[in-house]
């Protein structure tokens, strides 16, 4: 089972879009990693998210993966970015996705 943390800026993504993103991520993880995923949302309160010293509108997604080839990882990253921009209508500069291998997180 993979784990996914989605950090979003308060008030930027509707509940309906959050549900669409959840379904989309579940489908992407199933397709790309043949796995399930446990997803957690973290809302960054207004005034607490900054990018380049200005208020941020960017979402940050962290999804753990097994050890996979870089081509597969790039496809996975692209799929999540595309999902995010499609569902939320944000720009590509407003989504950052990180996919560390689970093995890198084990101390």
């Amino acid at each position: 089972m993979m784990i996914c943390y989605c950090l979003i800026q308060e008030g930027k993504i509707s509940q309906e879009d959050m549900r669409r993103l959840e379904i989309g991520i579940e489908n992407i993880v199933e397709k790309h990693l043949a796995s399930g995923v446990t997803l957690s949302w973290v809302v960054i309160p207004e005034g607490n998210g900054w990018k380049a010293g200005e208020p941020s509108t960017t979402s940050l997604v962290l999804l753990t993966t097994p050890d996979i080839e870089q081509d597969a990882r790039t496809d996975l990253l692209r799929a999540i970015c595309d999902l995010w921009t499609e569902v939320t209508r944000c720009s590509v500069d407003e989504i950052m996705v990180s996919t560390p291998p689970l093995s890198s997180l084990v101390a």
Partner: protein
Amino acid sequence: MPVYICVAPSGRIPDTGKQQISRSITRIHCEVTKAPPTFVHTLFFDLEQVSSLGPLWKDVSPGCPYQVFGSIRSGRTDDQKERLVSGIRGAVAEVLGVGAEHVAVTTEDVEAKWVMEGGHVIPEPGEEEAWTMPDWMRKQ
């Protein structure tokens, strides 16, 4: 990327100081690494919230009231990391008006190839020019 997460007990970092801290961190990160400021993230959380951050957060120095955890691209030198830590520590202490001994800062390397931002897998340190270039210019 980078992502700097600043944590303190609830209410200890005034709202007015958050932009100052984010700008100081951005400036220091860019001065030390020569990376563009475009994608320097600074996030603030109450200490009570960090358990909800999973692998995004690691305790920097339990017991220290102000903690900063920076996820930075791997490939930075030890000297750069030391300058990041000492610079950010001093800047946060100055904004908050506390002694530097009350601020703990650490960084952790993240492989650039694991991250996509701006629609592209982020480049290795020193190869940022193409990343921040508009698509039309990159294709020429």
